[in-house]
C-alpha cells in the first residue's frame, strides 16, 4: 500500500467514526420511523445507552411506559424493537456505549438511562438550579443542554 493510500484510508476511517475524536458520542438514530415515534414525547434516545434486553423489556411494557400509554401498532412496534435491539449498547459497543455497558449488571434490564453510574458521574458537577430550570424539566431532556444530542453528540460540557 502506498503512503498516499494509507493517508486516504485513515482520513476515511476518521470521518466514518467520530468516536475516535472523543468518546462523548454514540451512533445517532438513523431510522426515520424510530426517530418519529420514539421522539414524539421525548428525544429519541440512542439505543447504545441500554443493552438489547433492556429494549426488549421496554417494548414489552409500552402500555405503561413510565406511566404513559405509549402503545403502537404491532408492525411499528416490531420494526422499532428490531432497530433498538440491533443497535443496542451490548451489540454495537461504539463510543460512549461501552462505558455505559460496563456499569450494567449482568442480566440486568435497566430502563432509565439517567440512572446509569456513568451518567451520574458525568453529571455530578451540574448544580441543582440547572436541573430545576423550567426548560429542563427532567434529567432525560438531553437536548436542553446538549445541543447535538439528537445527532449523538454529548461533548459540549
Amino acid at each position: 500500500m502506498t503512503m498516499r493510500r494509507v493517508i486516504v484510508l485513515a482520513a476515511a476511517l476518521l470521518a466514518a467514526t467520530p468516536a475516535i475524536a472523543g468518546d462523548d458520542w454514540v451512533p445517532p438514530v438513523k431510522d426515520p420511523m424510530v426517530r418519529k415515534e420514539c421522539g414524539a414525547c421525548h428525544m429519541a434516545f440512542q439505543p447504545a445507552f441500554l443493552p438489547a434486553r433492556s429494549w426488549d423489556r421496554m417494548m414489552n411494557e409500552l402500555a405503561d411506559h413510565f406511566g404513559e400509554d405509549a402503545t403502537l401498532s404491532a408492525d411499528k412496534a416490531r420494526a422499532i424493537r428490531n432497530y433498538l435491539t440491533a443497535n443496542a449498547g451490548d451489540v454495537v459497543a461504539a463510543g460512549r456505549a461501552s462505558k455505559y455497558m460496563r456499569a450494567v449488571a449482568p442480566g440486568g434490564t435497566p430502563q432509565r438511562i439517567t440512572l446509569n453510574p456513568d451518567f451520574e458521574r458525568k453529571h455530578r458537577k451540574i448544580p441543582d438550579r440547572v436541573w430545576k430550570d423550567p426548560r429542563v424539566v427532567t434529567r432525560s431532556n438531553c437536548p436542553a443542554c446538549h445541543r447535538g444530542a439528537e445527532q449523538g453528540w454529548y461533548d459540549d460540557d
Partner: protein
Amino acid sequence: MNRVLFLAAILAAAPAAVMAADARRDAIIADYAVQAGKAAPGFAGFSARRGEALFRTRWAGGDERTPSCTACHTENPRAPGRNAKTGRPIDPVAVSVNPARFTDRDEVEKQFRRDCKSVLGRACTPLEKGDYLTFMREQ
C-alpha cells in the same frame, strides 16, 4: 416563460396543499360526528365553545403533572408548548399557525388515546374529540 410557469405552479401548489390538509381534517371531524351521533341520538353538532372548555378545564383524574391540556400546550393554543413530563418542545395546536395539525387520522387517535388518559384519566368521547378539533380549527 418557463420560470413564470414554474413560479405560478409553486404559488398554486401552496394553497392546494393547505386545502388538502383542511379536507383531511374535515373528514376526521365528520367521522367523529358519525360516532357522536351513534352514541347520543340527540347529537346536534360540535361546539368550539365546549372544545375550549375541555381545553381549559382542570381535571382531577389524570397525571398530577398534566391536570389540563394547558399544562403542555399553554393557555394560548397558538403558542408553542412544552411537554410537562419530558421538557420536549411542542408545536402549536392551533390550526391557524400549524396547518398540518389534525390531518392524519391515526396520529390524531394516538394522541387522544395518550393525552386523554394522561389529562382526564380516561378515554375521551367522540363528542369531546370533535369539540376539541372544532375549537382548534377556529384558533
